[in-house]
Every structure is written in structure tokens, then in C-alpha cells.
């Protein structure tokens, strides 16, 4: 076992691929948290996105329909959550937990009611890797970064788009202002409630899309529990990424790498129980979290906005 084993091109290629669902969902949650809301039901939204996306793809054969369906269902849940958090001023953590269980349950229930009982689990054809014309030919890097499924390219494109929107457009300024001080924005005549609701919808769509990535690219089937904590991981990613898209990208790559690595480690070190390596991403997440507590956070995170505040 040498350093080369840790840097094999296929390992890193897998890392980039595994990081894409994390990144997509993380961009959605980043947008949401920058706007002042926090959704703990990520895990459930991703499950629902995976389930619905898989089902639609399975029955229609159209990848794009499946992806669209998962985004729509994510947006719907996002709007429901957003409405309760913004207009009804409900507690976001408690409401989020309810949606978590609802989405997780629905993901499984809808799948089972639709598929019924079968001997062999239904499968779809996973997305192929697309090798980019010029860039794909670069040795090593070409394989790692530029031979990926289309959804992965999309995930990475999201980063510059997010940066552009958040920092260079008036909309982005308003979204960030919503997260810092909605009252300041409201006194200037901007409809804070509408912004938060729309962001909720878009964010929900992106998160569900992240979930759909898993059956469509990685496993070809849907299984209960396939999200395996990625949703929770994304929540932490946004925090240790200090709410900056670029840092979140690096974080996703890191955890994608860990995921890619753990299978190799299980094979390389058969003396140790495999569960130890399976625990690795979660343990790492915890350790990184411990050291990123004092970071920046949008000032109005989790606080509902009341326009007429008396005491």
C-alpha cells in the first residue's frame, strides 16, 4: 500500500462522480441557508427525488423526464416547507423533521405501491460517462475530471452559476440580504416573503435532483435507505464550506473521495472489519464539524420574519 494507491485515476474519477450528488444538493441548501432558512429534511428530499426520478425514468424510458419529475417533486415539498416557515412563521427545525419523515416514507411507499412485489428489483440503464472532446484527452486529468456523466458536469456548472447569481446580480444581493436582515430589505420595499418562497422551491428542486443522481448514475436501482446519510452530510458541508460555493465544492470532492476510497480500503485491508471503513465518512464529517463551529453564519438564519414587531 503506497501513496499511489490513494491517487489512482479511477479512484479520483469515482471521487468526482460520487461528489456530484453531494454538490448538487449542497448548492440547493446553500441557496436556502443564504436566504435565512434551514431545511433538515434534506435526507428525505433526496430520497424522494431518487424514488420519483427512478420511477418516471423506469416507466417512460426518458432520462430527462425522470430528472424533471424529481425536480418538480422537490420543488413542491420545498414550497410547502417554505410556506409554513415564511408565511406561518413555523419553527423550521420541527417542521423540517416532519417533512423528513414524510418524504422518506413517501419515497419508499410510492415506490413499493407502484412497483409492487417482484423477484428481481427493476433496473434502469445508468447514464454513461461522456468524454469531453479535447479536455477528455488530457492524461490523468482527462479521465478524472472530463470523463463523467452529464449530471456531474451539470453539478459542477452549478458552482459558477451560483457564484454569479449570488454575488453579481441584484437578485443575489437580495437573497443574501434576506439571510442577513430581512427587515432591512423589507423596509426598502422588496417582498421578502416571495423571495424566500421561490428560493425554497428552487432549492428543493436541486436537492431532489441530487438524490435522483444516485439511482440514475450510480446504482441503477432504487433501495430504501440508499441515501445513507448524504443528506445530513450536505447540511454539514454547507457549514464547513462557510457558505461559499467554492469551499463547498472542495468539501464535496473530499467526501466523494472518502466514499470512493472506502471500498478500496475494505479490499486492501481485509484484516479489519469492513464496517470500520464504512463508518469513515461519518467519522470524518464529525471531526471536521468540530473544528468549524466558529464560522460565519447568515445572521437571520432560522429566524422567521415578522413585519409588525411589537416586543
Amino acid at each position, binding site marked *: 500500500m503506497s501513496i499511489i494507491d490513494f491517487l489512482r485515476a479511477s479512484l479520483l474519477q469515482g471521487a468526482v462522480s460520487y461528489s456530484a450528488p453531494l454538490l448538487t444538493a449542497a448548492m440547493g441548501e446553500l441557496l436556502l441557508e443564504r436566504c435565512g432558512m434551514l431545511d433538515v429534511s434534506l435526507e428525505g428530499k433526496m430520497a424522494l427525488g431518487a424514488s420519483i426520478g427512478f420511477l418516471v425514468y423506469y416507466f417512460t424510458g426518458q432520462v430527462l423526464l425522470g430528472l424533471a419529475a424529481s425536480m418538480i417533486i422537490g420543488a413542491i415539498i420545498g414550497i410547502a416547507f417554505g410556506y409554513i416557515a415564511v408565511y406561518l412563521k413555523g419553527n423550521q427545525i420541527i417542521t423540517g423533521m416532519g417533512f423528513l419523515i414524510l418524504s422518506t416514507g413517501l419515497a419508499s411507499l410510492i415506490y413499493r405501491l407502484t412497483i409492487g412485489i417482484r423477484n428481481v428489483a427493476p433496473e434502469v440503464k445508468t447514464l454513461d460517462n461522456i468524454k469531453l472532446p479535447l479536455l477528455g484527452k488530457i492524461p490523468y486529468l482527462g479521465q478524472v475530471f472530463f470523463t463523467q456523466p452529464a449530471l456531474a458536469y451539470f453539478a459542477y456548472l452549478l458552482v459558477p452559476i451560483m457564484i454569479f447569481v449570488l454575488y*453579481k*446580480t*441584484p437578485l443575489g*444581493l*437580495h437573497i*443574501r*440580504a434576506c439571510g*442577513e*436582515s430581512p*427587515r*432591512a*430589505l*423589507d*423596509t*426598502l*420595499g*422588496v417582498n421578502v416573503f416571495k423571495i424566500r418562497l421561490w428560493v425554497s422551491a428552487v432549492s428543493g428542486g436541486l436537492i431532489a435532483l441530487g438524490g435522483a443522481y444516485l439511482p440514475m448514475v450510480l446504482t441503477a436501482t432504487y433501495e430504501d435507505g440508499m441515501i445513507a446519510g448524504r443528506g445530513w452530510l450536505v447540511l454539514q458541508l454547507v457549514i464547513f464550506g462557510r457558505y461559499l460555493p467554492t469551499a463547498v465544492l472542495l468539501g464535496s470532492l473530499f467526501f466523494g473521495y472518502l466514499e470512493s476510497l472506502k471500498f478500496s480500503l475494505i479490499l486492501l485491508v481485509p484484516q479489519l472489519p469492513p464496517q470500520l471503513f464504512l463508518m469513515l465518512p461519518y467519522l470524518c464529517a464529525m471531526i471536521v464539524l468540530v473544528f468549524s463551529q466558529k464560522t*460565519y453564519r*447568515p*445572521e437571520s438564519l432560522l429566524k422567521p420574519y415578522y*413585519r*409588525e414587531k*411589537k*416586543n
Partner: protein
Amino acid sequence: MSNDISRIKYSEGILREENPRVLMQSINKRFGEVQALDNASLSLEKGEVHALLGENGAGKTTLMNILSGLYVADSGEVAIDGRKVDIHRPKDAADHGIGMVHQHFELISNFTALENIILAAEGGRLVIDMDSKHKELEELMPRFGLHVDLDANVRDLSVGVQQKVEIIKALYRGVSILILDEPTTMLTPQEADSLFSVISSFTKQGLTVILITHKIKEVLKVSNRITVMRHGKCVRTVRTSEASEKLLVEIMMGEKSSYKGFSISEKPKTNKIKSETMLLVEGLTIGEPKQPSLVENVSLKVQNGEIVGLVGVCGNGQMEVAEAIYGVRKPNMGKIAICGKEITGGSVIESLRAGAFLIPEDRIHQGILPNLSLSETLILGPHNFLFKHSLMLNFKRIYELGRQAIEDYQIKAPNERADTCLLSGGNIQKLIIARAFLFSSITDLNLLIAFNPTNGLDVMSAQFVHDRLLEIGSSGAGVLLISEDLDESMLLCNRIYVFFKGRVVGELAHADFDPYVMGAMMTGGEPND
């Protein structure tokens, strides 16, 4: 209601032919049980500085919040330049050229000054052109005699500069009716003067400025006309040239105040003279990695029966000194002793045991238990001494204490089991004062630290608090008063330490109190005359 406003009488003998800039007619606003505005009417002329004068709770801010669209009136009408307008949201007000600078700034501390100023006024393009905005503002600011560093983070700016950012924000939007809510609360006397000269230059350019304040001296200095508000009504409007301090106080207070002294059933224990010096601080130094000189080599003393003030612009170290004394913050160096007992670097419970007690700055967020009964809020702090030897609470005793406090301090509450959040601000402060007295009756109260104790209180409640502080001082305990209200400090204190950039830059005895001298010290300058 007809638009023929020439029929409306406003202010003796001042009947104009042109329409007033702003006319607010018969505005009513109720919040739950409280009638905040009761048939209030106000008229404003173009190019004037109009002061809205009244004590805390009179309705001044509420009335202006309605004009600026933050609140919606229950009934009544607003007319601008003679035409009736419907203002339901801040945007409507902005469209009519109305802008408000609130008492607590609506700035985003993590944004730069520039981002705050252009927020929601970026122009309709897809991309924000920061450079052109920068240029625009560099041209705008000198026109009004203002200047700020556009690229600085607002959190790094001083309060006076932040206020300028707020004003520029309004000007950038072409505001023609500017409302300033208690603008001088956190300014030094010099900064306040600078603000007033800026206001004068505004009116010369045709802006109408409304100044919400409770400070009579200010009003006489800077305004053209004054409207006095009381209990939600606009009682009277006078020309400043015809007004005097005495007249304004009379109008503000109305009937003779019904405040009488209170008698308390449990007087604070007379302090057995254990030592002369209640509080001794020597060489206190506090620093953090990012802020190395929060407090630098501060030494101070509070004697038996003294009320000592720590005065300075917010953020110059007074708060950190108090935190170190109370055990909330650990100093890097120095010594703190209460009645001779050293407590440097100790925890809150150790300070409590040494006889220190705190009246916190933010009474709601730091002082009460909103969803517990007010009796349980009352014992928070004293609980360390009330139930020292038992595992279970004695609710009978707790509610008994609550009843006693309601009676002694005339706290307006349904009963002793009511949720604390139902109390009004003034009553909450009474509860907290009751708590301090409870503390002193069950253990030694050696040092009372009071932090902006009358913030946001009406005159009667503020007077009550002042009386209680004096009472505690006269019982032998020492009182450390940290207040942003210079007048209050000068009224109550025997001695004042002036803070600037973490150091004590001056110590004055009562006889030498001078607001301008202290104002100069607070900003590191030489006192000018």
C-alpha cells in the same frame, strides 16, 4: 373625507394657502390591548425640520412607521402635497419620496457600505455594475456634506458613520421626506452637532426632515416646529421660536405626574461595613485574538454607598470590564476584588456569591424567562441561595415571593403565575429590580451592576428605576452604572470614569461633570470650548 384641507385647522394662526407636504389625519392604531395611536393628526411643511417630541411610548415611532409603510393604520388618512395616498407597504412610501432612518439601524453588518446603500435600488439590469455605482455615490455624498468609506464592512464602522450610511441610503433613493428616529441616542455630543449641521443643509435643499426625539434640548436647537405627542395623541404643535423648555415639559407631561414614592416591605439589608471598598479593579487587561486591546490596564474603584458611572461610546471597553467583574469574561491580566475577596477570572456563580448582581442591558433577551411564570423569573439568580439545601423547589414560597413583588412594585400583571412574556417593558424592568432587592434580602448585595437600566422606559418607570438605584446605593452597596445616556449618568453618579479605546481616559467627580468635556474624552479628542 374631502380633499379640501383649507378647512382643517392646524396650529393656531398658521393657515397656509399651499398644501402641506404631508398631512396625516385622524390616525388610529391598536396593538392588542394597547391603543398606540389615538386620533393622531400631523401636518408637515416643505423644507422644515419638524420635531416629534414625546416620552417613550407616546406613539411617535408608531406614527412615523405608518407614514413610512412599515405599519398599516387601523383608520385615518394620509395626504401628500394635497393628494390622498394609500401607503400599505414600505415600497409605497418609497415611491412617494418618504424614507426613514430607524433608531436601530436597518443595515446589514456583513455587507459593505456600498452594498447597503444600493440594496433594492440597483437599477434593472441583470448584473450590478459596482464601479459605476461607486462613482455615482462619490459624487452624491459631498453634495450633502457626508462622507463614508464605501468599501468598508458596516460591522467595522462606528455608530456615527453607520448612521451616515443610513442617511446616504435614503438620499440615494431620492428621498424628499426624511424621518430620523431618535438619531442622537448613540452619538457623542460632537457627533450630534455634526448631524444637526447636516440636517440644516438638507432643508436648504428643500427636503422635509422629521426628527423623532424625547430630548427637549435638541429640539430647541435644531427644529422649526415642534409637535408634542402624549398617549398616542398629537397634543399640540408650536413654532420653535415661540417655545421654551418649560413650556414643552408642561405639554409633554400634561397633568401633574401621579408618581409617588413606593414603600417596599423588605428593605435591602444594611451592609455591615466589612470593607470600605466594594469593588476594586487593578490593571485589568482583556484581549481576544482578533481584538487584542478590548480593555487595557483599567483600574477603578467603587466605595461603600457610591454610584460610579462607566461612560463612553458603545464598544470602548465598558461592557467588557463589567463582563469581567460579573464572571462572564476572563481577563488576561489584572485583579478584581469585591469587598476584598478576589474573584479574578472566576465564573458567574462566584461573582454572585461574592455579592455582585447584574441588571442586564437587554432585559428581554438577557433577563427574563418568557414562557415561565413571572415568579420563576423573579427568582432567577437568587435561586442559587433560596434552595441551597433542598432538591425540590418550594413553589409555595416562589409564588409567595411573586405576589409580594407584584404588590410592592406595583407590577401590572394578571397574577404571580402569569407568563413573563405578557409583561410590558417597564413592568419587566420592575420585576428585575425586584429581583435585585430579593437577592439583597437573602444574601449580601455588595455590588450592583446596572447596564442601561432605563433604556426604552417611559419617564415614570425611569424615575422609579433611578430611585431604586439611589436606594441601593444609600443602603451601603456599591453601584456600577454603565449607561449610554450621559444625562442619566450625570444625574445619578458620584463619580464617572470615561472610557476610550479600552482605557480609562478620565475620572471625574460630580462637581466636575461636563458633557462636552466627557464627549471629547469619549472620542479621544481634546475638550474644545
